[in-house]
């Protein structure tokens, strides 16, 4: 017995009660947020809003909210007509992290890609590419420590972007528009100081983005059920008198603290519609602009991917500035993403679902790979035993036999 559920029932009950009371509180805050939005809905307010953001930035007040790019903040925009033909590419990755108790130290990245010739009626192309890393320069840091799971994860993310760029390059002569769909935020945050090849990874990532720019691919990062509060941050800023803007007052979102952007827009956006374009005012985005140029700065919008008459389901879509600069292109990408989301009842893009399925390494496959490695080690006269801890883990987690005690009659 691993989890004793009877000890959890009271805690789960309390969790439900607490979340219900939080929901009531949030509903009140949503009304306030919408009032602020509506108060600044007039297109004439756009320069004022942008000035307020510039003011907060100039005061170095730690503003992390959004800045409207060039569209009035209450303009909800429907998608363009669905393109009859298009090329859609999506990638995703998975990993097996290094296991110090295994027979050998290694890690594996597996990148799945799907290419759909939208509107052709043709069978999509699928690619699954595994990469095995065991050389010391990949496994250890400079001070001989083992790399962290975060490092493997960062390398996986960069490989995903590289694969997306590679396939977009191969398909550069295919029909347009081209949607290059990336799973997650384009602003990669996972490359921390613990990653030994941090700078190199950023270099590969930006090169891949540049290659996508060169083939004019519609790069989109798809974030399902986003928990971000960039627009809530903006609304809080607009709610503050100008002379009160400071690090202290921007440390929270004041009377709308706790609200996420999706709480605000799920009541506003109709199926298929998107919000105006916003720029995220984060140091990461600043780095992107500095390293990749203005074309690589990340812009975002929210869109409702639910079908008509369904409860709103919001996604945050991140696009680089080179895509944002062509609003017809943005509309077509919005239409293609919406169409992809209508393929599945979960309203998640079909191509990302398939890329994930192509990439994922299941537990059984990890076991098979480990056996394969053990066989190879044995063949070359090397020690192929796992640690005692690993052997016991395998035994304890394997299929259990139930022994029943017969009751005495």
């Amino acid at each position, binding site marked *: 017995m691993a989890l004793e559920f009877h000890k959890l029932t009271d805690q789960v009950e309390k969790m439900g009660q607490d979340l219900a009371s939080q929901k009531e509180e949030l509903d009140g805050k949503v009304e306030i947020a919408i009032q602020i939005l509506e108060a600044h809905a007039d297109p004439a307010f756009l320069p004022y809003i942008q000035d307020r953001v510039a003011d907060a930035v100039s005061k170095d007040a730690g503003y992390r909210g959004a800045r409207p790019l060039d569209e009035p903040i209450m303009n909800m925009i429907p998608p363009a007509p669905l393109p009859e033909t298009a090329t859609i590419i999506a990638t995703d990755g998975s990993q097996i992290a290094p296991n110090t108790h295994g027979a050998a130290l290694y890690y594996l990245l597996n990148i799945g890609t799907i290419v759909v010739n939208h509107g052709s009626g043709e069978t999509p192309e699928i690619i699954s590419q595994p990469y095995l890393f065991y050389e010391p320069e990949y496994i250890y840091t400079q001070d001989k420590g083992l790399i962290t799971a975060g490092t493997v994860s960062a390398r996986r993310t960069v490989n995903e972007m590289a694969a997306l760029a590679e396939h977009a390059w191969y398909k550069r002569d295919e029909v347009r528009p081209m949607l290059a769909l990336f799973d997650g935020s384009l602003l990669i945050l996972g490359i921390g100081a613990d990653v030994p090849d941090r700078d190199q990874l950023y270099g590969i990532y930006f090169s891949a983005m540049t290659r996508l720019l060169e083939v004019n691919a519609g790069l989109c990062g798809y974030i399902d059920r986003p928990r971000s509060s960039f627009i809530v941050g903006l609304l809080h800023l607009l709610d503050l008198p100008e002379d009160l803007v400071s690090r202290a007052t921007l440390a929270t979102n004041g009377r709308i603290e706790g609200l996420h952007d999706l709480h605000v827009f799920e009541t506003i956006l109709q199926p298929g519609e998107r919000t105006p374009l916003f720029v995220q005012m984060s140091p990461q985005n600043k780095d992107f602009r500095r390293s990749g140029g203005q074309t690589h700065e990340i812009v975002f919008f929210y869109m409702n991917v639910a079908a008509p008459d369904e409860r709103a389901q919001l996604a945050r879509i991140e696009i680089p500035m080179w895509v944002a600069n062509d609003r017809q292109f943005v509309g077509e990408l919005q239409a293609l993403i919406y169409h992809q989301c209508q393929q599945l*009842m979960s309203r998640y893009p079909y191509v990302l679902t398939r890329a994930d399925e192509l990439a994922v390494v299941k537990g059984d496959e990890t076991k098979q790979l480990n056996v394969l490695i053990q066989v190879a080690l044995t063949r070359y006269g090397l020690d192929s035993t796992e640690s005692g801890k690993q052997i016991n883990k395998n035994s304890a987690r394997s299929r259990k036999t139930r022994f029943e005690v017969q009751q005495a009659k």
Partner: protein
Amino acid sequence: MTKIWDEPIAYVLRSSTSGFSAGAGLNQIDALAFGMIVKAQPGSDPREVVYGLLYDIHIDDDPLVRQLVLAEAVSEETIRDQRQHRIAPVEMSVISIGYRDLDGRVRQALPPRPPISLAPVFLCSDSESREVTRFFDYFRLVLSAPGVPSEQLLAANLVRAAQTRPADEQYDFLIEAGREAARLLSGDMARLDNLLRLIYPHNVVVE
């Protein structure tokens, strides 16, 4: 030209002497039909063959397919991706009706051993089907098999077996099969009536 019985239609998943289950890709669905006679090898000796009747052809779902079924705007590309790329095997059951022994004789009895996992399953050619259904001893195996739609399966097989024979033999074949069924099912008129109605030679020309 490659004939349909030269290429495997499926591969064995699970087996026993009384029958086996097999799996195939969705692209094989057109080659399969309820009541067909199929064969698979139980061992390495190609002379030894197990014969059976195909029934319970089914396609399982998975959570992704269920979502696609409920969505209303599934594109042609998505359907093709699902059918041609994803592992969604057509599964089928086969009831053993006989085997070919090492002397080359077809025996209408349970085989000495079942086909092994991943053994290829082939359709029988018309001449082999005629040979396998030359006698009716296999009726008892089909009619007494638990969990099998016996009359439906036997009838489907007999109609197919008749079609592998020359036109002037088809009527007599079905009449003889009906007589044998009547002998075996004399104590169960409902089943017999059902079977005879299914194999009644409406379309067979009587000379």
